[in-house]
């Protein structure tokens, strides 16, 4: 199959010499990376996967059995609806850019490379999970997420190849050279160097960490650089599935935990082979606090620059806001001053990251409320999960040098150290969760620690053979 046939696209790849030249070199390297760093094993198995083969309603979600290395990673931009103008910043109302404006090259490249780097990173983080999947259904979902993260890498690499010349090609190569957790070539963002080697962490990652990605993509889908806006808009449709894998994965673990607690005479979920809610709460605390870092500094000149330059807007900029200049407005945020939390007024543009974090936190609150309903439905009362404060357990930003409890109250280091093991997973908690990670590959069967999903994928039954093993 020729290169242009193997790559579904709506960017007229066949007649684009520049893109063809770049991809001819990059695609083999990508496949090599996938073999080295993609899912360990399962590469010869038939996975029932969704492939985007075109951007229209019938084409973006095409389901069939496919071997992962044969997956057709495509390049899609959401079609343009007429003439678009930039919707925010100092360049509001100007015509969008179809090419990279020279003066914004550095900033744009940085935005794209940082976003792009997370895509292969998450595949690398999750590469061993297939070995201990709690069901075939989950195994298939994992691979669906993996191949689509791969496609998101393609989407970003397309931008680098198409619009950034030699620099872009070098950055695209570097994306395949960095490795999650590698001390010599780490991924750019620290969260993406943490290990995700069991499924509770995977679901937490898809719920919390990937959800940052949704808000980043959403901000970028407002971009004045039109190819970026269109690429990220299309990525968002796929991202929604990843988030649901996370949110419902945690929900099913919560359901099983609640049911096991009710079933056990000592209220001991672990005795029933489930993960207890206390441990789940600790995982929420850990993963949420790690994910909120990804939004960047609370007070950020980069964020202000990106917004002012028309590169990165706000979530739902057009739908939600009337004033797209965001100049002269003020954002109040809690800061620590003289050992106390007080409020500081920050120019809104410098607080763009924090505003986006607000949206994210609200979204996470909604998911936690759903999990609490699941607990109630299981007949367990008096127990609720909660989202920690965004100030809790931070390594970066204005809260990093202080200690906070999960409610967000300022505490001293000694108190934090004394309580840490009740707030965050201990080695023992992690060992317990790890001990449950036994593969469960019989169609329709679930591991002991997780409830069955309510329905299968795309109308298929839960016991559908989502993965056909060839070995």
């Amino acid at each position, binding site marked *: 199959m020729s290169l242009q046939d193997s790559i579904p696209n709506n960017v007229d790849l066949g007649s684009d010499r520049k893109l063809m030249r770049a991809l001819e070199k990059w695609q083999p390297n990508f496949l090599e990376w996938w073999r080295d760093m993609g899912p360990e094993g399962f590469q010869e198995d038939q996975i029932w996967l969704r492939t985007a083969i075109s951007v229209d309603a019938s084409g973006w979600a095409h389901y069939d059995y496919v071997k992962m290395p044969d997956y057709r990673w495509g390049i899609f931009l959401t079609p343009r609806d007429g003439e678009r103008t930039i919707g925010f910043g*100092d360049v509001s109302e100007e015509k969008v850019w179809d090419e990279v404006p020279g003066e914004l090259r*550095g900033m744009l*490249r*940085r935005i794209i490379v940082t976003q792009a780097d997370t895509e292969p990173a998450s595949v690398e983080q999750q590469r061993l999970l297939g070995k201990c999947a709690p069901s075939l259904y989950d195994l298939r979902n994992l691979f669906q997420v993996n191949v689509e993260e791969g496609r998101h890498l393609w989407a970003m690499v397309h931008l680098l190849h198409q619009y950034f010349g030699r620099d872009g090609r070098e950055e695209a190569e*570097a994306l395949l*050279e*960095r490795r999650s957790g590698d*001390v*010599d*070539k*780490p991924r*750019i963002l620290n969260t993406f160097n943490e290990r995700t080697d069991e499924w509770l962490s995977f679901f937490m990652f898809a719920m919390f960490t990937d959800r940052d990605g949704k808000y980043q993509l959403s901000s970028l889908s407002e971009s004045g650089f039109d190819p970026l806006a269109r690429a990220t808009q299309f990525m968002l449709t796929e991202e929604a599935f990843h988030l649901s894998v996370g949110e419902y994965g945690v929900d099913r673990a919560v359901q099983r935990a609640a049911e096991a607690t009710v079933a056990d005479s000592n209220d001991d979920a672990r005795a029933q082979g489930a993960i207890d809610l206390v441990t789940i709460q600790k995982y929420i605390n850990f993963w949420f606090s790690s994910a909120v870092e990804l939004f960047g500094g609370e007070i950020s*000149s980069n964020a*202000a*620059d990106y917004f*002012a*330059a028309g590169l990165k807007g706000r979530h739902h900029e057009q739908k939600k806001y009337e004033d797209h200049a*965001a*100049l002269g407005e003020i954002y109040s945020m809690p800061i620590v001053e003289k050992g106390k939390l007080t409020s500081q007024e920050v*120019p*809104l*543009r*410098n607080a763009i990251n924090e505003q986006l974090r607000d949206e994210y936190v609200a979204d996470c609150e909604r998911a936690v409320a759903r999990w609490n309903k699941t607990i109630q439905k299981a007949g367990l009362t008096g127990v609720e999960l909660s989202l920690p404060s965004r100030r809790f357990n931070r390594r970066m930003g204005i809260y990093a040098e202080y200690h906070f409890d999960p409610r967000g109250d300022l505490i001293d280091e000694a108190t934090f150290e004394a309580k840490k093991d009740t707030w965050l997973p201990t080695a023992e908690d992690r060992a317990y969760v790890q001990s449950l990670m036994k593969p469960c590959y019989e169609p329709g069967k679930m591991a002991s620690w997780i409830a069955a999903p309510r329905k299968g994928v795309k109308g298929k039954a839960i016991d559908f053979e989502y993965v056909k093993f060839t070995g």
Partner: protein
Amino acid sequence: MADSSTPVAPNFETHPDRYKHWQLDVDGAVAKLTMKVDPHGGLRDDYELKLNSYDLGVDIELADAIQRIRFEHPEVRAVVFQSGLDRVFCAGANIPMLSSSAHAFKVNFCKFTNETRLYLEDASANSGIKSLAACEGTCAGGGYELALACDRILLVDDGSSAVSLPEVPLLAVLPGTGGLTRIVDKRKVRRDLADVFCTTSEGVRGKRAVDWGLVDAIASRSKFEEAIDTQAKALAAEGADAKRGPGITLDPLTPTVEEDTITYRHVTLKLDRAARVATLTVNAPESDPPTTGDAIQAAGADQWALRCFRELDDAILRLRMHHFDIGLVLLETRGDASKVLATDAALEANQDHWLASEIRLHMARVLRRLDVSSRSFFAIIDEGSCFAGSLFELALAADRSYMLEDDDEKVAVQLGALNGGALPMGNGLSRLQTRFFGDSATLEKVLGTEGPIVTTDADDLGLITLAADDIDWEDDVRIAIEERASLSPDALTGMEASLRFPGPETVESKIFARLSAWQNWIFQRPNAVGPQGALTKYGQPDRPTFDWTRC
């Protein structure tokens, strides 16, 4: 353009025990200087020193450390600069500090940091103390310029660590600490590549940084410590043969500071604020100097040649940073010229002794600090003065010298062992060579003089500006002072800087004459510091706008 809200009168004296931002660890021939800037430890509290960015206080500690390594740890042959923070070497001078500082402070801050880096190079060239910058993560602007002042630069190759000079694209100012000069003049980076580098805000990393000559070597993260160790040892071996030490202790100067007078043991600075004139008086040694290497070693920091010039250095810095409106400094000397000359002779005779050599090099640095100070200097050579030998350099450094013509010919100047080239200026020449640039006949004649040179002879030889007898003296001197004090300080600064350094250029002279001059111009321009300027708008919600006129 906001001026600094709180006036800063920094103390230039510090000690490793009191460092807030650096840690000095000496292990045999290798010293490590670890930079971990306390974000809340700035000289003012209206900015935070994030990401190992620095203000004057951070650089005062660095200058102190380099000085102490030379005198207190002479066994050190290599200094490793590294960061105590994760993924950032040094982000350069703190931008909020710069953009909120008064112009005069900015200029003098840059001057001091430039001197500190030149002293690091001086330690390498003249004392065999080599330096290695071990750069990991962000190495930007002043951070890379610090690395450029080192003999070798090692960069982590992790796909993201980069060296950069982002001042032009990000802030619309120049890398002001010698970066532009050193990449082309010292590291010999090709000028077109340097052009690309200096306009690429994200900088250059990995193999390309080596290929372009921006760094000497790269190492993977896991091999980084090993590479630092290997390179530090190799650098230490380069200058290993010289016998140095044992070190001496640099005791505090702790001058008595009163309203208008700062009094040291050998130096006094008197301020006449209303007239905008200061008098800097340097006293000759009162006793005979140590004459052997052992005696020089035993005398330590107490000996006049070291103590007096340390005091002079501190006085110059205080003048620069505490008294911005003093425009004219009268240089006076008091005491026994023969004791100065004996001191110089002893230093010359023992030039192979490490401490004698360090003392001389220190004298030279202090005199160069005076050369580049943006104040008018008049030497007042009157009765009781002792402008001889190393102290005669003060008169040669001055913009003008006034000499009293007394009947009994007691007033004299005199050359000594160190005037022939031991105390070079930034242009690489001695002050006499510079004074008689292009006139080697007179230079020869002057160098051939022996004994005291009385006023009329000094005048004939061109060693002074003006001779006046006791009838004219007071009026001539008074009028000259008042006239000088009335001229525009800006024009004088530019004029003096242009007239003081005839002759060849060096990296040092280019940094002060070319780079600093352009930087100081840009620092005044609306494109940098106007209401819409890039420095003003840095970190603000809106972006800069430029006036596109090319000047």
